[in-house]
């Protein structure tokens, strides 16, 4: 096997571009029985807030064609419990562990960033300005360029030497405008995309399938949207982009690299089988060999368009 899967990102090196997406891989250890966590390019943990959050009422998930809706509502144990109980068990010396941040305003985001910046085991901070399932902030943060810039700046100021990733929402008319604002605010990396807002209903009971009525759509169904967003953002900004949305095979990984992504995150596909991310990471170098791709830098962004 000769292909080189390594990826350089601001402030870190990943042994491969296969990372796991926030909210789909627990706090990491849940998936340790299914593969060696050190084989992954990175692990983005469940969205963290300053204080624990209970999350939304049930039902919180609904299956849709080639995808699913979720309205978890950012249930999490809080940053303190994460740092005390979860992080020490993760192989942070071998695999970058990325914290995903959620807060209700700029001050809270800054405080949360400050707490995480002090942690040796945290490789980067991913700022979630795109959650469709919370009342305060969430997606609204990621729909207004001024707000996106302001929140990124607030996190960046307190992030010390940790790279700041900003996770963008596809639920906007112009994702490039938000991407530019985040980069101006100091984003080192952009993560594209979070879920698309959606609904599912039951014609017999006349009830929505989610207690929250609206949720976020994810899974293979959204891959074309994610590819489009990554492509547009890569055309417009020079910051590295991480592609997320429907990745469920090594072929999908290369599709995102082809349109310009540095790396990808596996989300809903982790639910299809819990060893999915490990299998994709293992398969990728074989596929690259088959296609004659020596390293990802050579292949990245080489789409023959127009």
């Amino acid at each position, binding site marked *: 096997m000769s292909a080189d899967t390594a990826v350089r990102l601001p402030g870190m090196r990943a042994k491969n571009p296969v990372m796991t997406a926030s909210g789909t891989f627990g706090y990491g250890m849940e998936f340790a*029985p*299914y593969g060696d966590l050190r084989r992954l390019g990175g692990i983005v943990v469940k969205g963290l807030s300053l204080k624990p959050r*209970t999350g939304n009422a049930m039902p919180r998930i609904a*299956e849709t064609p*080639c995808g*699913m809706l*979720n309205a978890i509502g950012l*249930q999490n144990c809080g940053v303190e419990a994460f740092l005390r109980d979860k992080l020490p068990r993760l192989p942070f010396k071998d695999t970058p562990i990325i914290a995903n941040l959620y807060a209700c305003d700029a001050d809270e985001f800054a405080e949360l960033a400050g707490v995480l910046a002090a942690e040796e085991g945290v490789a980067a901070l991913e700022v979630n300005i795109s959650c469709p399932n919370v009342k305060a902030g969430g997606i609204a943060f990621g729909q207004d360029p001024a707000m996106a810039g302001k929140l990124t700046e607030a996190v960046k100021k307190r992030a010390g030497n940790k790279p700041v990733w900003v996770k963008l929402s596809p639920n906007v008319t112009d994702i490039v405008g938000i991407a530019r604002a985040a980069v101006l605010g100091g984003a080192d990396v952009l993560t594209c995309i979070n879920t698309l807002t959606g609904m599912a209903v039951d014609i017999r009971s006349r009830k929505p399938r989610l207690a929250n009525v609206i949720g976020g759509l994810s*899974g293979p169904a959204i891959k074309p949207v994610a590819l489009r967003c990554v492509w547009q953002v890569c055309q417009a900004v020079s910051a590295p982009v991480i592609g997320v949305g429907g990745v469920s095979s090594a072929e999908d990984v290369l599709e995102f690299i082809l349109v310009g992504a540095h790396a990808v995150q596996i989300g809903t596909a982790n639910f*299809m089988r819990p060893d999915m991310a490990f299998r994709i990471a293992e398969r990728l170098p074989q596929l690259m060999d088959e296609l004659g791709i020596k390293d990802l830098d050579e292949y990245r962004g080489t789409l023959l368009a127009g």
Partner: protein
Amino acid sequence: MGISGACRDLTILSVTPAGPVGAQFGCYYLEMDNPGLDPAVAGQFVMVRPAAFGSDPVWPRPFSICRLTPDRLTLFIQACGRGTDILCRLAPGDPVTVWGPLGQGFALEPAVPTVMLAGGVGIAPFMEYAATHPAPGNLSLVFGHRQPLSCYPFAELSQLVRAEAFEEKTPDDLPRFISRLEKTVAEFAGGLILACGPRPLLLTVARLARRYGARAQVSLENRMACGVGGCLGCVEKNALGQYVQTCTEGPVFWVDELSLSEDA
């Protein structure tokens, strides 16, 4: 020695209808080879994804372990939707990925008189429970069903334990079944009560157990996406008002650990 939880790529050995199969209804036994799954506690479950799912349906499906022996894994599945229809139409040799045993199973107190309250396909985990119980003489089964009794492993269970079936044919039968349950809960108030079946049955058992101060466990069938604690989609409210994952902390809970409500 099995690897706890690891994904196994298995092949179907057989798919057998359990009894009469109609256009609207069918229960099947799915048998797979067992290349070293960890031993299970009755009430634990596995996640199942046949290759035939492709990328749709996206989620694997959870099923109670109906029987796990050193060379066989048997599931008892009611075809009731897209995923179960695909599963029940698999043929010998078809590939299927399975991971488990997952979650927490039923309490085992061999010396304590124990009653299993099952509704419909909720009978599945009690096959394993009865087959592995060291003192089946202390076990009873009360089984509520709507389809013919021959659709369920009732005859097999009756050979192992004291068993009684109750058919629900008309809506009027429901209150009678509930009073039958009440009598049982009262009788086993000093023993151990285990329930598995549709949510209304579990809510009734929880309510009755509280009324009679009985020790009771229920096995929840909340919708699951991952089955391994990764998504937070399967939660149930505990007695403290916090949401706990039914896939890792359940599916079996003591009723007083939970504050059960109608919706799930």
